Structures are given as structure tokens and as C-alpha cells.
């Protein structure tokens, strides 16, 4: 007969030193990220609160914090959303071309070139935007004002320099394009062969195969990629600060010379000359940006989770 073990002798699985070390380092890495994030949040909150509570007389901009930050939030969101609406469809198209359409000889170099775009410093994009793109877009803005001026977005008067929020958004779109493209491309390439063949065997054309098999499979990846792009667009500082001629208004007019600024660009442009409570107000605006970015990421997670049963992960 086998002997029964006494209850106090609990069975322990042997642990190997390698497992323990790996577990420890990965835990430490995870905690470090949380600690860094918490540190940033604490700093922004502690330094920002005086700025939020400051009376209009004590700060340079001469308004309450809410009045100060609302146009900035508006500008930040407007520029980022515009950039994404331009970049995401283009990125998906480019990624699909590289992963499924392009002949192999073309696909690899094209992929490298797109990746290279991500390595260009943002100040270079700023210079390009201000010295090439903005002047080049002036005729287009005039045309938009004359022909599509009845749409509030293009009401004008068209900017003579071209340094509008639309120009800034186009620069942002170019900047976020490589990130979104690279991620989408990797995910498209991972589409199970089985699903692609299922679609083809039903008589799907290549585009229908993309719609039936690739996009549904890549859906959550596309959302994550877009969120990464949105994060970059929301926080991008240098290029926007250089390109945009900002005047702190709230307007949907995309082509005029009075444009809302963005939080990040505004901090960069005014931080040097700011003193006292104005600095705190700027930090508080940074806190607002932090909260927005957080909210965007949670929203994205919620969207991805909502159709979890259908994700194909089960």
C-alpha cells in the first residue's frame, strides 16, 4: 500500500535557478515601468496643481487655467485626428501592398524605406514642413477656399504662408505613417495561410481575401498600431512648433492663418520665457496631455476587447 502524506508536508515543485532569475528580472522590469509612470504622474500633478489654481493675474496668459488649456486640447486633438485620418488608410494600403501585392523584389526595399522614415528626426520634418510643404500647399488652400469654401473646414481666408493646422497635420501624418505601416505589415504577414486559402477557395479576389481573412484577423493589431501613431501625433512637439502659426483659438477652419496650438508645441514655445506660476500652468497642461493619452489607450483596449470572442485567439 502506498503511504498517505501527512497534511503539513506540502508538495513543492522544484524551482531552477534560471527560472527564478528570469522571473525576478522580468518582474523588476515590469515594476520599473509602473514606477516610472507613477513618478511622472506624481510630478505632473504636484507641480501642476498650483498652475491650475492660479488666478488670472499671476500668470502670463492672463486667463483661468481652463480657458487657457481648452483651445490647446482642442488643437492637439484636431491635429492628431486629422493626421490619423490621413495616415491610417494610407498605412494600411502600403502595408497590404508590401505584404500581399508587391513582387518580392520590390517589397523588401519598400519596407526598408518606410522604416527609414521613422528614423528621421522630427526637427527635420519641421524644416521640411516649413520650407517646402507649407509654401507648396498655398495654391491648394486658395483653391479649397474658392471652390469648397461653403464647407466650414475650408472657410478661409486661406493662409498666405501655408503654415496652417492642416499643414501641421500632414507633417504629423508623414511622421506616424512608418510606425503604423511597420506594425500593420508584420500583422498582415502573420495572417494564417489557412484563412487566406479558405477565402481564395470560395472564389475571393485578392482584395476580397484581404477583407475576409486579413483585416478581421489584423483588426486589433491595426487599432493598436493606430493608437501608437496617435500617441506620437498627440505628443509630437518640434515639428508642430515649427510649422504651425498658432494663435490659441478654437476653430475648425483648417486653412486660415489663425490656428489652435497644441499642448506639446505650446510648452516647447513658451517654456523658456515662463516664470513662476506660468511654469506650473504649463506643467498642468502637460498633465492634461498625459491624461488624454491614457484615456486614448484605455479606449483602444476597450474596443479591442469588445469582440474578444471573435478575435480568433480562442
Amino acid at each position, binding site marked *: 500500500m502506498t503511504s498517505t502524506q501527512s497534511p503539513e508536508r506540502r508538495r513543492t515543485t522544484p524551482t531552477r535557478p534560471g527560472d527564478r532569475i528570469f522571473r525576478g528580472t522580468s518582474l523588476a522590469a515590469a515594476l520599473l515601468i509602473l514606477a516610472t509612470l507613477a513618478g511622472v504622474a506624481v510630478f505632473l500633478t504636484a507641480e501642476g496643481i498650483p498652475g491650475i489654481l492660479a488666478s488670472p493675474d499671476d500668470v502670463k496668459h492672463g486667463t483661468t487655467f481652463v480657458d487657457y488649456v481648452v483651445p490647446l486640447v482642442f488643437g492637439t486633438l484636431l491635429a492628431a485626428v486629422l493626421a490619423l485620418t490621413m495616415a491610417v488608410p494610407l498605412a494600411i494600403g502600403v502595408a497590404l501592398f508590401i505584404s500581399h501585392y508587391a513582387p518580392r523584389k520590390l517589397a523588401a526595399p519598400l519596407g526598408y524605406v518606410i522604416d527609414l522614415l521613422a528614423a528621421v528626426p522630427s526637427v527635420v520634418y519641421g524644416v521640411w514642413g516649413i520650407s517646402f510643404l507649407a509654401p507648396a500647399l498655398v495654391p491648394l488652400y486658395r483653391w479649397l477656399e474658392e471652390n469648397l469654401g461653403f464647407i466650414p473646414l475650408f472657410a478661409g481666408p486661406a493662409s498666405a504662408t501655408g503654415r496652417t493646422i492642416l499643414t501641421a497635420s500632414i507633417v504629423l501624418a508623414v511622421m506616424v505613417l512608418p510606425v503604423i505601416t511597420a506594425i500593420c505589415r508584420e500583422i498582415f504577414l502573420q495572417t*494564417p495561410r*489557412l*484563412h*487566406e*486559402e*479558405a*477565402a*481564395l*477557395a*470560395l*472564389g*475571393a*479576389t485578392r482584395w*476580397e481575401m484581404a477583407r*475576409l*481573412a486579413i483585416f*478581421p*484577423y489584423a*483588426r486589433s493589431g491595426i487599432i493598436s498600431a493606430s493608437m501608437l501613431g496617435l500617441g506620437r501625433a498627440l505628443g509630437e512637439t518640434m515639428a508642430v512648433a515649427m510649422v504651425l502659426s498658432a494663435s490659441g483659438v478654437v476653430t475648425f477652419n483648417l486653412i486660415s492663418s489663425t490656428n489652435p496650438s497644441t499642448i506639446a508645441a505650446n510648452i516647447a514655445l513658451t517654456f523658456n520665457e515662463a516664470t513662476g506660476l506660468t511654469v506650473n500652468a504649463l506643467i498642468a497642461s502637460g498633465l492634461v496631455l498625459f491624461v488624454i493619452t491614457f484615456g486614448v489607450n484605455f479606449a483602444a483596449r476597450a474596443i479591442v476587447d469588445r*469582440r474578444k*470572442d*471573435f*478575435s*480568433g485567439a*480562442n
Partner: protein
Amino acid sequence: MAKSIDVSDLDIYYGDFLAVEGVTIPIAARSVTAFIGPSGCGKSTFLRSLNRMHEVIRGARVEGKVLIDGQDLYADDMDPVNVRRLIGMVFQRPNPFPTMSIAENVLAGQRLNSKRMKKKEADEIVERSLRSAGLWNEVKDRLDRPGSGLSGGQQQRLCIARAIATQPEVLLMDEPCSALDPISTSIIEDLIHELKTDYTIVIVTHNMQQAARVSDTTAFFNLAGVGQPGKLVEHGDTSTMFSNPADPATEAYIQGRFG
């Protein structure tokens, strides 16, 4: 709707590599034809050439003729997309679209082929296809649930329902039971028996008993040697092939004395 297939002197190449050589075989309408043979002998490749699915691999091409009721599948003006709409296919591993519900899976081919369907029409197609695939009673209460939540055997029947929803002329099956347990396998074999009244069925199998059970005609493929192209050794009535094959290699393979 079922049509016969006539293959004459078909060579299949991947680039310069000749994978299958000189296949000539008639496949009768409303019958089950089984392809048997050792791995790598080209039977799956040949099956896929019947709906041009082998063209998914770059550099694949054929020489010879495949006629479906006299219509050349490889004619210059024949779009492979149209070929696949005529000839349905079921794969070795069940592959329902994981992001679609059971009903959407069944309708996937229909949605490609035709413009708009009325809700009632769509419901009818779903029910008819799932009934033909013997799955209706098991899933009728959860048509809006994901197809990936079904068991392997149910998923494979869902794939069959999806393939027959568009009422193809021919149904190709590439080892449809090799990933399934014996009970699911027997359900699918019964299903094949029922389906052959409406469809021409071609099935690749590694399971000789299965070929003997389900097929009317059996074709034996073999390799002449390593690096040689696969060949059709012989084909004929299944009972003859299993009791009295003409070629000694066929007899050796069927009796498990291969190699």
C-alpha cells in the same frame, strides 16, 4: 448542377520543378473519387490543380487540359476566381473564419458572389447549407456565435456547409478527416455519401479504409523515386482496385506492404 471532370495529360510544375506528370483521368459526375498514395506523391497538388488553388504558390503552372463538362479550366479567358466559385474546396484542417459567426461563415462565399441578399433569403441559405452538412440541429440556437467555438468535427462540417452554400459543381476535399476523431470522421463520411447525390466529390485521403468506404472510384498515385515527379499509377472502380489491382505497387500499398 454536378458536372464531370476530364483531365488529359496534365503536368504540374512549380517553377522548373515537375511535381506531377502526365495525369489522365475521367471523373464522373455525382460520384465520389478518392485519391490515395504515399505522402509527397502529388495527389494534393493534383487535387488543388482542379480548382487552380495550387496557383497560390508562386511559379506554379500546368500543361495539359482540365475540362469541366467540356469547358477548359485553364483557357486564357478563364479567371481562377471564377473557377473557384464553380469548384468548392474543404481543407485538411478546419478553417472557419474566426472573426465571423456561424451564419456569416456559411454566407461568406455567397456574399462574394452576389450583390445583396434579403434577410429571409440569407436565412434560407444558412439553414439549407447547415442541414446538408448535418450541423443544423447542433448549432441552430447559436448561429450568431463565433465558428471557432465549435469542436473540430463541427468546424469541419461548418466548412463543408460554407463550401456547398454557393452550390458549386464539384466539391474537392483534401484529407478532410485527418485532423478529426473517429466519430467525427464517420459523421463526415456519412455526409459524403449523402452529398454525392448532388455533387461531384473528389477526396484525397491517407486512410485506405476511408477510400474503400466512401468512394466509387479510386486513383492511386505514386512516386517513381526520390526527386521524380508523382504519377497516376492506375485508377478504376474502388472494389476492383481494392480486390484485384492491376499494378503490383497498388496492391503493395493497399495491403500495407509498401516500401
